[in-house]
Every structure is written in C-alpha cells, then in structure tokens.
C-alpha cells in the first residue's frame, strides 16, 4: 500500500511584501549601521541599494561602509568589552534568553523580512530559519549559565585552576544564504563567551540583520553587538586583518576563506572558517525494501536538494543511488520534484523561492550548460520557469536533475542552486569511493535500514556531518563544520563556546611558603 505523502494544499495565505499596507514588516527608505547601541551613518555617507530577488526591485538602501566604519565599530566594541567580559554568567545567560524571546515575539516580521531579502520561501523561514535562530540563543544561554572551568590538584600545595575567559573583540563575516540564522550562529556563542562582536552581513542580504537589530538593539549592552554593512572587497579586509580583533570567524567561499586564514596568521589570532561543500546523499538498495513511511522519507531526502533553492553549503547536491533501485527510486523522486511549487516566496504554499541574485542565477545556468557539454543528461528542469506578473523579473530557476558521473565538474563543484547531480553505484565500496572523491567534506547523507551499514559508512565518509536517515536538520547540540577544503572549526555545540569563543587561563597557585632552592 502506497503511503506517499500528498503535498496538501496549505492554508492559502500570502504575506504582503515589506513596506506595503498590511505587511508585518516596515521598511525605511534608508538604514544605518548599528554601532554602540545606536544607528550610525557611515563615515563617508555612501549607501548601496538593496533589492529583493523576488522581483529584482530596489526597496531600501543600506550603508556602503568603508574601512573607517570598521574602526568606528571596533572603537565601540572595545569600549564595551571590559564590562561585558566581567558580566556574570547569570546575566549573560539572561540576555541571550531575552534575545531568543524577542526573536520569537517577532517571528512573523523577521520571517517575512528574511524571505524578502533572500528570496527563500516564508514557509521555510517560519518553520526553520527563525525558530532555529531563537533556539540558538537559548542553547548558548544554557551553555553560558552552566559554563564550568576545572581544577587539578597538582600536589598537596599546588593547584591548577582553569578558567574560560573572553577573547575580547571578535570579527565575524557571514553569507547570504541564511542571513539571520548565520547571524545567530555567530553572535550567540560570541556574546555567550563574554565577547563583543563586529559582524558584517553579505552585501546582497544586508537588511534582515538590521531588522533584527531593531528588535534586540535595546536589549544588548551598547557596543557588544555592532553591525557594519558593505561590500567584502571594501571592508572585509579592514575587519579580518585588523590588529584590534582577537578572532575572525568566516562562513563563505573557499578562496576568501583562505585569505581569512592568511590575515589571521599575520596577527596570530584564531580563525574559524566554514566554506563550501558538495555533499553526497547515498541511498542504499534496502530503502526500497518496503513501500512505507521510511521510503517516503528517503524520497523526500533526495528532493531536499531543493531546500533553500539549493543555496546551502551542505546541499545534498550529489545523489548516489544503488543501481538496483535507481529506476524505481528516481521515478518517485522525479514525480515529487515535478510537484514542487515555485513562486512568490511570501505565499505560504510556495516551496521554492528565487535564487539570491542575478549573479547566482547566471552561474547556475552556466553550470547546467557545462554539465550538458560534459555529457550529463538533464532529467528535469534545466531552465528558468515562466512566472506571472512581478515574479517574471525574479531570479527563479527550476529544480533540476542532471544524470552523469562523479568526474564531471557538475559533480565536483558547488553549484549553489537547485541542481542535483545523480549517479549510481554497485556496492558499498564504490558508494564510499564516490562519496569521498571530492575536495570538500562538509555534509553527507546515508540512507539505509541497516544500522551496521549506516555506521560503517558514517565513520568512513570524510565529512564533518553525516546525516543518517535524515537531512537538513541543524539543531544546536550537533557539531557542524568541515573536513578537507570545507574549512576549519566547529559550530553549534558546547566546544564552540569553550574552544572557539573563549580562551583558557590556567592559574597555577602555590600554597607553600618554601622556595624552590634553585637560586
């Protein structure tokens, strides 16, 4: 008996675009940087237009900051760092929980704003992005309140005390794909550790974090959170190579990640980087052993490459399917893909929104072209959809599947769009070989009813995250970060705070009056 999930027609609600009557989101014609608890105009008074990828229309402007603005932000952060660094764990935890409360109280507003700035469906921001952001602050509130050091009795008169101390002021640079969630992943552990941050959002999505600042700006002590918007080529270096930061954190593309590490080396500071991925999603033959709920979940697991329109560093962009089930499994998957509802991201029934920018759209188109030139077969999609009205100008691309082999560039490079590369394998060894034949190692997926097989595969795949019989879940408490060229460091769990956002002080104390007798 088939138990395929029917995509039920959800409540037909369409949010009004920000700034329009009836929208939960207000829009100012111009925004400033958020520095020292205030809205501060950029020093050189230059602004950049911000558009929505839904209709390619400009709806506001934000600072096109210059290195001078980074210095202003660092001034504010340094002015705040002593007091915040000495704030009790109780008070720090309380603040993080207040931030979480404020995010939840403004769920709809932030969800619609995020959807509009990025192009992703409000269905996802309401269900995933914003709730996960709030939860991230709660998680680190808990980690802060229960933060413990340690002590060791070296001998009867000598004790080593270990303390987690703040780093001071940190620099953080985040990408366009999950602007608010990426902000939460960075800001929460930074504040939790007693640090002040200067954070730069991506230049195509600079606005939703400013809406967040409107919501939490009065809660955070002035100077602990500073937001500077502008192009990476202009202010990225000013922040990342600045001698006044004690750490740099970066999520974004690989070459800039390398440059970030290079700058960190100049100043002898720690860096953490989360870069690209080309995650294999592996489906063993036994997923089709029964026509049940789990099979349904596995089919969805393949189709999850379309989540966030494929603009995810961990996009399951390579599906590896056992050859014995390929035809039957792909038939179900293609049928599910064909039913993906693409359109206005503010329509609650929309499942796939617009790509983030024209540049992304052009890049995806170019990749499909190169894939076909390499001999891949396009099973579905491969082009822009024809949408009505304002959406006709939006940056939409149809969910696409290319069938080929793992040596093709479309199997090796991160397309960052709704393009799935699919291939088959004959046995466990080949699945593993193909899975690991990539420069990257951020995410991966394993689907099987056999727990022993799942464990063997999971331990052998060279990636920091192996989703096992699931995908695209990002709960705090599960470490996240890369192997190989996918970057260095781990986010989303306790060691993020204790290893990346604090530094260890050992107080080695002698309770003896006796000299050593050396001199």
């Amino acid at each position, binding site marked *: 008996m088939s138990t395929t999930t029917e995509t039920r027609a959800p409540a037909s609600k369409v949010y009004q675009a920000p700034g329009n009557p009836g929208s939960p989101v207000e829009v100012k014609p111009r925004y400033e940087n958020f520095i020292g608890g205030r809205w501060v105009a950029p020093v050189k008074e230059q602004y950049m237009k911000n558009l929505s990828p839904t209709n390619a229309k400009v709806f506001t402007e934000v600072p096109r900051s210059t290195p001078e603005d980074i210095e202003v932000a660092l001034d504010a952060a340094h002015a705040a760092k002593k007091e915040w660094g000495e704030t009790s764990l109780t008070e720090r935890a309380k603040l993080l929980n207040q931030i979480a409360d404020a995010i939840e109280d403004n769920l709809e507003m932030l969800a619609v704003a995020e959807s509009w700035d990025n192009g992703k469906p409000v269905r996802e921001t309401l269900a995933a992005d914003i709730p996960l952001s709030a939860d991230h602050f709660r998680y680190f509130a808990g980690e802060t309140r229960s933060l413990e050091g340690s002590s060791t009795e070296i001998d009867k008169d000598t004790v080593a005390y270990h303390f987690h101390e703040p780093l001071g002021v940190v620099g953080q640079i985040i*990408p366009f794909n999950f602007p608010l969630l990426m902000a939460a992943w960075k800001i929460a552990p930074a504040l939790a550790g007693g640090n002040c941050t200067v954070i730069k959002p*991506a230049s195509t999505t600079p606005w939703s974090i400013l809406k967040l600042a409107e919501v939490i700006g009065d809660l955070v002590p002035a100077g602990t959170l500073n937001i500077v918007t502008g192009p*990476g080529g202009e202010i*990225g270096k000013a922040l990342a190579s600045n001698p006044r930061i004690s750490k740099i954190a970066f999520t974004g593309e690989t070459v800039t990640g390398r440059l970030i590490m290079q700058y960190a080396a100049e100043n002898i500071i720690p860096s953490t980087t989360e870069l690209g991925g*080309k995650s294999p999603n592996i489906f063993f033959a036994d997923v089709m052993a029964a026509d049940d709920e789990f099979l349904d979940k596995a089919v969805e697991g393949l189709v999850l490459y379309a989540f966030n329109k494929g603009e995810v560093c961990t996009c399951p962009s390579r599906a590896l399917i056992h050859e014995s089930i390929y035809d039957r499994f792909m038939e179900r998957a293609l049928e599910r893909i064909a039913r993906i509802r693409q359109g206005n991201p503010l329509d609650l029934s929309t499942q796939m929104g617009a790509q983030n920018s024209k540049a*992304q759209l052009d890049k995806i188109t170019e990749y499909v072209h190169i894939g076909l030139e390499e001999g891949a077969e396009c099973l579905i999609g491969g082009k822009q959809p024809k949408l009505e009205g304002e959406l006709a100008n939006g940056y939409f691309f149809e969910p696409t599947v290319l069938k080929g082999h793992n040596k093709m560039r479309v199997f090796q490079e991160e397309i960052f769009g709704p393009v799935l590369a699919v291939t088959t394998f004959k046995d466990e060894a080949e699945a593993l070989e193909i899975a690991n034949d990539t420069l990257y190692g951020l995410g991966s997926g394993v689907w099987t009813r056999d727990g022993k097989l799942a464990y063997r595969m999971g331990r052998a795949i060279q990636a920091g995250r192996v989703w096992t019989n699931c995908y695209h879940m990002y709960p705090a408490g599960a470490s996240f970060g890369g192997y190989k060229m996918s970057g260095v460091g781990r986010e989303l769990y306790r060691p993020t705070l204790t290893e990346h956002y604090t530094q260890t002080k050992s107080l080695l104390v002698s309770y003896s009056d006796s000299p050593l007798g050396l001199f």
Partner: protein
Amino acid sequence: MKTVAPIITTPTAVDAVTELRQRRGQLVFYQSGGCCGGSLPMCFEEKEFRIGDNDVLLGYVVGCPFYIDPRQYEKWKHTQLILDVGEGEPQGFSLAPADDLHFITRSRVFSPEERVALVVTRSRVFSPEERVALE
C-alpha cells in the same frame, strides 16, 4: 597541432581588467570552487593574496596571473576557462571591476584533439571571429 590555452579572456573582461589594474595596481586572480563563490574567479590586489608553491598558474589575463588550487585543477583541466564579466556584486573579498559588476568564469569542454595539444601558455585576447567559433 592547434595550441590551446587553459584560460582566455573576452574583450569585455580585457577592458575591465585593464581599467581595474590602472586603479588598483597589479592584480591576481584565483579561481574559487566552493560555496557562494563557486566558479567565480576571485580578484585581489597582487600583494593581498599569498601564492604558495603548490598553486597552479593557468596563464595571464592582461598581464595579471590567474591561479587555481592544484587539487581543483585536476578536476577542471578538461575544460577551458574563459574570463568574462557579469552583472552583480562579487562574492567574498573579491574586487569588483565596476559597481554591480563582477568577474565570472565561463567554461568550455576541450575536444579530445585539444586535450592532446594542451600546453600552458600565456593568455591572449581572442578576435570576435574566434569568439564566435568557440560558442
């Protein structure tokens, strides 16, 4: 035997690189492969980006070196890279040739004959006829 270059440049990109180089000095290009910047050539002032002994030099664009990671090169070497300019802001810390423009890399799969003839050579501007012949 036809000589093929691993990297060539469109006339638009030649103009863009020339102009940017006049403003910012000698440049270096480095091919990205991952995340938001996948397939984009990142462009920096030469002194910014440290090149290592392992980086692969594909060629020159208007006298500026164009590099790729050696591991990535192994995956890309069956294709020719074509430096061009596209709409939109660059990713990461890459310089923009002008407001709302960024460098892009187009690709073309080499024919079997071209793969045999592949040599590392200096990039050159190609004529409109050659450009059409490539498309």
